[in-house]
């Protein structure tokens, strides 16, 4: 089984959020960048588990990004991916990223394409579905479990008010949400091995960028919190009803 994992780099979950260049760009100054948790904890680790269980196959990661993403990509190799590809472009739009990934992946015969549920900076959750369309594969978003046997995948996915169990033949694309696997910490051997694993840089092809983020803004500051003495806790319910009008 040949598995492709879409790996993105994002600011650390606790990073200070600020913008620069007239609020058109995230200010990465002094910020630690990490592998997007959904890509790392769920998509990549489940891909490795499936390969290990099958005893054969390969796991490739693909990232659209500049040279600054290579430390994150190496971490993916240290966790256990066999090879990594970096498509050399600054991501500015989901369709641009998806077109670049699809151009690389088409004709490579991947059986499974795993994306994360969403990136924790842009929170779009669309790149996986776009890649699926461009590669002509079925797509199951928000998958929390994935089993594969004899070319048939069984997937649990989160739907409003419950869980749906679906089956689909490979090749197949999905986006991974919580529950699909447990986080793996790279060990020393993995880190050593990662140094010699292939990280191929491919040039970007020319693709459309039909949408662009033109400005960021911080939400208006929250008003002061209204404190209620614990002895009069019941007042909270009255205020939520008559003042805030939300219950």
């Amino acid at each position, binding site marked *: 089984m040949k598995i492709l994992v879409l790996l993105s780099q994002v600011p650390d*979950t606790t990073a200070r959020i600020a913008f620069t260049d007239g609020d058109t760009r995230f200010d990465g100054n002094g910020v630690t960048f990490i592998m997007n948790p959904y890509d790392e904890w769920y998509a990549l680790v489940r891909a490795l588990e499936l390969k290990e269980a099958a005893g054969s196959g390969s796991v490739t990661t693909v990232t659209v990004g500049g040279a600054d993403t290579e430390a994150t990509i190496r971490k993916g190799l240290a966790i256990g991916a066999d090879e990594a590809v970096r498509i050399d472009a600054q991501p500015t739009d989901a369709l641009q990223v998806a077109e670049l990934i699809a151009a690389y992946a088409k004709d490579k015969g991947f059986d499974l394409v795993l994306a994360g549920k969403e990136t924790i900076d842009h*929170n779009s959750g669309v790149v996986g579905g776009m890649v699926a369309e461009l590669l002509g594969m079925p797509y199951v978003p928000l998958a929390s479990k994935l089993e594969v046997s004899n070319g048939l995948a069984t997937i649990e996915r989160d739907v409003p008010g419950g869980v749906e169990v679906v089956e689909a033949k490979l090749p197949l694309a999905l986006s991974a949400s919580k529950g699909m696997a447990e986080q793996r910490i790279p060990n020393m051997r993995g880190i050593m091995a990662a140094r010699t694993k292939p990280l191929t840089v491919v040039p970007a092809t020319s693709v459309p960028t039909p949408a662009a983020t033109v400005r960021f803004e911080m*939400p208006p500051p929250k008003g002061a919190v*209204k404190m209620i003495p614990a002895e009069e806790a*019941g007042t*909270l319910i009255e205020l939520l009803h008559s003042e805030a009008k939300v219950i």
Partner: protein
Amino acid sequence: MSTIVFIDTRGEKLPKAAQEAVTYASQLNGGPVTAITFGEANGLESLGAQGARKVIVARGVKAVDSQQLTKLVADVAAAESASTIVFVHDATGKAVAPRVAARLQAGMVAGATGMPEGNRFKRNVFSGKARAYVEVSSPVKVVSLSPNSIPVAKGEGAATIEDYTGDPGPAGITVKEVRKAGTGIPLPEAEIVVSAGRGMKGPENWGPVEELAKELGAATACSRPVADMHWRPHHEHVGQTGVAIRPNCYIAIGISGAIQHLAGVNQSKVIAVINKDPEAPFFKAADYGIVGDAFEVLPKLIEAAKKLNAER
């Protein structure tokens, strides 16, 4: 020029999110609005009240098969010369909208939070810690709308219903089973949420949390460690790595308010926090706060909620 809106209307009643999406589509003022849906759907005429002129139903498509539904939407978009295609930013919309955007080479805005200004759409980024304005330059635009972003229009009129007569093609997936998670209100749709954390000490103490939720007609939620320790089911876990919600009212009990927790709840309209530690970070994000012991405060809240219910 027309606007089309794809909605999932399966189930006993029309989901609020679907009505919001149709309202949004008609307020875009991009020509007549055609709604598209699938499966067994009832009461669709009423979408006229939100501005739909026509509803096209693909009764033969029963499941959220992203390929069939993409073909359906692309067919209708071509027939109606749609310039904007609206989706709901939920599990169904996430399956179909990105595919439609890729097929039509359309710029996509995921999770818009209000009406655009021209081609400029507003959405939340960094888990609600910031907002972004996205400009779409392609002739066709795809927009998915975050639930609870705009009020549902209550106009007059009934939509006409048409069956989809095209061929959606073969299904790529088969639904084997649907497991309902509890009988309560599904968390993403809830307007009031009562949530509790490790401050509750153990799963045996959730009785009053559930009772308060019941009195308020609220859904229950929890922090991540609570789900990880199996005190509560996983689908209740809210935050960065769990469900992101934006109810009108979020009541947090015994939750410290770690940044990863806030990421999933900070878009709630009103936040009330009960914590025995006055320094708990959650108070900084709150509209109302009570410093006190959950085990003493909860009974008072339940009593007040019962009183309120008796009065209305």
